[in-house]
C-alpha cells in the first residue's frame, strides 16, 4: 500500500495538494493511505524549506508547489513498480 504524507500547516495550498493527490490516486484506483503532517517540527524533519510538501513511501517528491495530477500518478506507479 502506498503511504502518502502531505506536509503543511494547513494553508490553502496544502489543502489543494491533498485534494489533487486524492483525486489523482483515486482516479487511477491506486490504494493508499494519506496522512497530513501539520507539526512544524515533523515537517522540517523531512528537510524541506517550503510547504506544501508531498512525501510518498518516505521519499520527498515535491516541496513548495502543487504537482500535476499526471505527475503524482507517475510517482505512485514508479514506487509500486519498484517494490
Amino acid at each position: 500500500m502506498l503511504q502518502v504524507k502531505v506536509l503543511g500547516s494547513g494553508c490553502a495550498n496544502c489543502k489543494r495538494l491533498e485534494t489533487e493527490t486524492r483525486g489523482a490516486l483515486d482516479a487511477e484506483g491506486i490504494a493508499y493511505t494519506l496522512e497530513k503532517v501539520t507539526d512544524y517540527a515533523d515537517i522540517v524533519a523531512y528537510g524541506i524549506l517550503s510547504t506544501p510538501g508531498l512525501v510518498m513511501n518516505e521519499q520527498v517528491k515535491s516541496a513548495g508547489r502543487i504537482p500535476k495530477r499526471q505527475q503524482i500518478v507517475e510517482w505512485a506507479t514508479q514506487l509500486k513498480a519498484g517494490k
Partner: protein
Amino acid sequence: MHLSRFMTVHEDRPAFVIVGILAVVWVVVYNNLQPIADWLTYSLLGLNPDSPIGEALNFFVYDVPKLLLLLSGMIFFITLLQTFIDTEKVRALVERRGEGIGNVMASLFGAITPFCSCSSVPLFIGFVQAGIPLGITFSFLITSPIMNEVAFVMLLGLFGWEVALLYLASGIIIGVIAGLVLGRLKLERYVEPFVYQIRAKRVQTGVEADKPTWAERFGQAADSTREVVGKVWLFVIIGIGIGAFIHGFVPEDALTGIMGEDAWWSVPAAVLLGIPLYSNAAGVIPIINALLGKGAALGTALAFMMAVVALSLPEMIILRKVLKPRLIAIFVAVVAASIIATGFLFNLVV
C-alpha cells in the same frame, strides 16, 4: 536515453512558438490601449474629455486592461524565472557566506523567490539548522514579503520603471540593513528552543534532480500566472475604480496638508497605519497612485504600501511558533524603522 533527450528538445518547439505568438499579440494590444480608451469614452459615449465623468471613465477603461495585461505578462516572466530557483539551492548558496555578503545574497534571493507566509516557519527552521546566522535569515525573511511581484508590476504600470526599480532596490536594502542590525543584537535566546533541537532526517529527494523541459517551465509559469492574476484581478478593478473616482472628482492638492512632503509626521503615521492592514498590494496601489496626483508624497505612499505587505498580523502569528514575543516585537520595530527611513529618503530625493 538519447532518444528521450532528443524527444524533449523536439517537444519544446511548439511551446516556444505559442509563447512567441502570445508575446507579439501582447505587445500590439498593449501599445494601442490609449487610442481604444479614447475612442470608447469620447467618440462612442460622447463624453467631454474635460468633464469629471469623462476623465474618470477614460482613466478606468485605459488602466484596467493595461494593468491586467501587464500583470499577466510580467507575472508569467517572473514565475518563469522562479522555476530556476528553489529555496534549497538558495540555502546552499547562502550557507557558505558570512555576515555582510550573506545578508546581501539572502536579501537578493528573498526578492526573487515567491513568498508564502505559511512557508516562513519551515524556511526559518531550515536556515537556522544549516547554521546560517539569525541576521542573514532575517534578511531573507524581511525582503521576501516586502518584494511582492504584484506590487512591483502595479508600480511599473502606474508609476513607471523608475519607481518600480526604486521599490525593488529599497526592499533589498531594507532587508540587508534590518538583517545586519538584528544580527548584531544577539537574539538567539529569543528563538523557541525546539528549533535548535530538530534534526533533519536524511531523506531521498528523487525527482528534483530531473531538469524540467522548457515546455514544462512554460506550463508551470502559465499555471502560476493564472493563479496570481485570478486572485488579484478583482482588487485591481476595484482599486482602479476608486482611483478613477479620486482622479476625476477629488480636488487637486486636497491631500497636500496631510500626506504631502511638508507634513514630516505623515511617513511614520502611514507605516503605523499600514501594519494592521492586511491587504494585497493590487488593491492598494491604484488608490495610492490617485492620491499622489492629489498632493500626497511618493515616499509616504511607498512606506504605507511596504508596511501593508511586509508587516502583517497573520505573518506575526505564524512566526510566533518559532520566535518569542520579544523577538517579534524587535523584528517589527527594526523593519518599521527601516521602512520609515526609506519613506523619508524618497520624500527627500524624489
